[in-house]
């Protein structure tokens, strides 16, 4: 052990070992922080898509589908986005741990911090409609098993659920083309539509009501496509608080 100092110095000189230059350490730090920022941004985008999904999901139609409330919630949760958000939180955790002072914080504080930052940024992005954009951009491009098609739920006129695009309106009757291409005459007399809101050709709608014959449907409640009980148009049903977000019928159905 005596000569170890000399041995080390000799080895350094013989093998021409040099200290790694300062810029390499700087570059590592920049790379680490860039990836942390990137992970946070992508994670926040996933959160904004998740919020969009939660806000626009029809959580309140379980009775029409013959499902229990919990069963409907479990079947409707956006698992893809939940999975992605979890993945980005894990990535953010490892990124923070690798930073200079990351080890000083307990794992749960890093995870809680990542969740808070992602939620905050995700909400901001959702408000800027980024979540909606990402969700629609990705939903058509994903493998079928990852897609949750809302359209399928609204192709059930026999169960009282019909969705489609308004192609014409005449007084209190709408002509709606459903997702299979069939055209329906929708009687909306029973629906109390706020004066400030106009339903016109080109609008995509979801209808709750009753099929009266092969091409006729009596609507009791209408919601625009892309809106849910927690969506932008909540609070239209002051007299019928159980079903928020619907333009509500005059008579209970």
């Amino acid at each position: 052990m005596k000569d170890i100092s000399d041995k080390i110095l000799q080895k350094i000189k013989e093998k021409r070992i040099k200290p790694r230059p300062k810029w390499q350490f700087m570059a590592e730090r920049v790379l680490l922080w860039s990836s942390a920022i990137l992970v946070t941004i992508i994670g926040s985008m996933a959160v904004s898509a998740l919020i969009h999904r939660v806000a626009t999901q029809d959580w309140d139609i379980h009775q029409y589908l013959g499902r229990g409330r919990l069963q409907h919630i479990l079947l409707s949760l956006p698992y893809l986005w939940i999975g992605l958000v979890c993945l980005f939180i894990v990535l953010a955790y490892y990124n923070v741990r690798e930073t200079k002072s990351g080890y000083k914080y307990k794992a749960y504080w890093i995870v809680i911090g990542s969740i808070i930052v992602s939620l905050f940024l995700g909400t901001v992005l959702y408000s800027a409609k980024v979540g909606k954009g990402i969700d629609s951009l990705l939903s058509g491009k994903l493998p079928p098993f990852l897609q949750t098609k809302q359209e399928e739920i609204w192709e059930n006129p026999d169960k009282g659920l019909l969705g489609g695009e308004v192609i014409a309106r005449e007084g209190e009757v709408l002509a709606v083309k459903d997702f299979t291409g069939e055209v329906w005459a929708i009687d909306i007399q029973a629906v109390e539509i706020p004066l400030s809101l106009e339903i016109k050709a080109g609008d995509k709608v979801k209808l709750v009501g009753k099929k009266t014959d092969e091409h006729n449907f009596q609507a009791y409640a209408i919601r625009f496509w892309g809106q849910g009980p927690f969506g932008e148009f909540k609070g239209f049903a002051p007299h019928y608080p159980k079903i928020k977000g619907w333009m509500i019928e005059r008579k209970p159905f």
Partner: protein
Amino acid sequence: MVKIEECQNKSEEELVKLSLADSDWFLCIVQKYEEKLARYIRRISGLTETDIEDVLQEVFIKVYQNLNGFDLDLKFSSWIYRICHNTVISHFRHSQARPQLIMGEDGEKLINNMPDEHDLEKHVENKLTAAEINKILSKLEVKYREVLVLKYLEDKDYREISDILKKPMGTIGTLLNRAKKKFKETAAELAINFQ
């Protein structure tokens, strides 16, 4: 060639800067830490003297290569111990070896330095032999052994241990308590009187 006397009035930060400019100055750092680190490696690993020397050389080469990455927020000793700790762990991973005994009087120092919250003073009075202490320590996992060594043999405080092991200070406290508990349990398992 740098003379020992020249090293003595220089701070560690100055020595880092000087070593970056001229590798001869690195001798000061090596001489200041070779004994401490060799003892630390011996304490946590129980490697043979030849292996300790190899690991020690590897540690100092790494230190030299990473001098520009020395974090001024840390104490230099914490930084160099961290590199040493990582090198020893990596050595175990590569060699698949399990750390062995803590030798001789170190075992007694460990016991003497442990706080008396579990009435450890009593155990000291029991005059546990170094062999018995070694036997207990050899049964402990590395994570418990290294924290006991850093706290009670290397006299590091919680902040330094946290910086060396790269774990939060709260975790160090928990780890230390568990290590002491494990020490006690292992003593009981080995039927060593530890009341």
